[in-house]
């Protein structure tokens, strides 16, 4: 599969909904930061030297030993893509938005199934990433570590005996590892326990992020939990800690859902039903509104209230209704209002197709 197919296909393996605990854990992500020895970090890199980094990575992935170990991976310079295509890679979570800035000197390496990627010349020379559906942090680390070894066979890393892998930002030094899970926690939000629960987590060396719009609820009730410390703990320990905290969160979220079903069943079914109704019939839909309705509908599916919609479709819709995809699908630039109209149309079409099949 080429990069063009990647941007044309709205689906990515991480959206499959196949991994363990995938009713609550949307995805697991592991990324490591690596830099090449004897070169300034990207923000101080001259245009020619930035080119040298891209070239070195290209050579590394074409190396026979690398190919045998990792299979074929394809390098694409960001300037080979249109702005919409670049944005789609962000919406699919394959690259970070930072790769869009000053993109002339940046590149991305992708494996066919989009599970593994390498960002070149982002904040660090290399950012290796593995993205899998459900709770699969150990597997993700295994894959990233193997990719790391494959690259290190030809690349000299900036590494210090005492400090470990050297990174542009000192918050990443040591392992350079950031492991995270994306969690859907509508139950804890509805029973008003989310603040307390998340407050506890931050005392365990983890960071919790939720993105809030105008209101007070996290958009789509999605939360990202990741490790804060990168120095002084082995990768396996960092990941084991994150897994054990995630498991506790899963237990609490399931308990909250059960309590809701037991004690406020009418209200819960009403909320899910309203979300479903709006998504099926609305003609104009903002991205914020869609995110919060998707969350309610997804909860209804996970709890068996809604039976004929497959859960992974909701994740796919979350990506498919982002701005760049709408532009891609319709093939033209859209005003915000047109975007809201196309978004509603697309959601109606996808939901009725799912019902019929």
């Amino acid at each position, binding site marked *: 599969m080429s990069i063009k197919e990647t941007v044309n296909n709205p689906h990515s393996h991480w959206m499959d909904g196949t991994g363990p605990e995938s009713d609550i854990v949307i995805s697991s992500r592991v990324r490591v930061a690596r830099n090449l020895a004897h070169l300034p970090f990207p923000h*101080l890199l001259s245009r020619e030297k930035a080119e040298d980094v891209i070239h070195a990575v290209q050579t590394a992935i074409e190396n026979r030993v690398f190919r045998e170990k990792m299979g074929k991976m394809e390098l694409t310079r960001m300037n080979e893509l249109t702005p919409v295509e670049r944005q789609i890679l962000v919406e699919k979570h394959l690259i970070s*938005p930072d790769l869009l800035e000053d993109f002339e000197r940046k590149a991305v390496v992708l494996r066919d199934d989009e599970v593994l990627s390498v960002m070149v010349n982002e904040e660090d020379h290399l950012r290796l990433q593995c993205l899998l559906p459900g709770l699969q942090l150990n597997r993700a680390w295994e894959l990233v570590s193997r990719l790391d070894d494959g690259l290190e*066979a030809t690349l000299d890393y900036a*590494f210090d005996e005492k400090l470990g*892998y050297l990174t542009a930002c000192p918050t990443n030094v040591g392992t350079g590892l950031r492991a995270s899970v994306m969690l859907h926690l509508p139950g804890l939000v509805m029973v008003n326990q989310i603040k307390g629960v998340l407050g506890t987590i931050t005392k365990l060396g983890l960071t919790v992020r939720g*993105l809030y719009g105008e209101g007070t609820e996290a958009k789509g009730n999605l939360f990202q939990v990741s490790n804060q410390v990168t*120095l*002084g703990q082995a990768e396996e320990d960092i990941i084991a800690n994150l897994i054990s905290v995630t498991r506790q969160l899963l237990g609490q979220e399931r308990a909250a859902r059960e309590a809701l079903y037991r004690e406020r069943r009418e209200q819960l079914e009403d909320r899910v039903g309203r979300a479903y109704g709006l998504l099926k019939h609305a003609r104009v839909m903002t991205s914020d509104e869609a995110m919060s309705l998707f969350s309610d509908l997804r909860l209804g599916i996970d709890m068996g209230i809604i039976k004929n919609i497959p859960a992974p479709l909701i994740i796919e819709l979350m990506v498919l209704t982002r701005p760049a995809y709408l532009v891609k699908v319709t093939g033209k630039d859209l005003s915000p209002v047109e975007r809201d109209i196309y978004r509603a149309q697309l959601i109606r079409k996808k939901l009725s197709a799912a019902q019929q099949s």
Partner: protein
Amino acid sequence: MECERCHQRPATVHLTEIINNEKRTMRLCEQCARELQAQAMGFFPQINLHNFLAGLLHNEFGFPTTGPTVAPAGARCEACGLTEAQFARQGLLGCGECYRYFGPRLEPVFRRIHGNTCHTGKVPERTGGKVRVINRLERLKAQLREAISREEFERAAELRDAIRELEKELQEG
């Protein structure tokens, strides 16, 4: 007011993000806000760590310090030319060598961010050399202490054998 992200266009959008239960409002231009929103599920904006770090660094680097042990203000990395002031402002180091130039003054920062100043994780396979063996040895020794304290003597014996193997490997180089 200028956009916090690109520092170029005027800030017209206010985005509130909650990190660890603390509200932080980002003032952004429309384009930056759109770029950040596009990734709203999954890649949450990663710009705040720098701000957070810059706050810490301000204490270590931002003020002219008077202590006699501290390098003169305005010191710079000889390899890439990054100055302390640049570092304090951006929160980014310029190259691997910077860690040597700014090292002693970074230690308190490491302690505050990581609670630690020493790497104990993975070591590059090809270029890591002895460090790899030494780190593995230290981990095994820690496991051995734990096994003994839990009175798991069979496991302890296994660990002792593995440690002896590695020590031999180290001596033979």
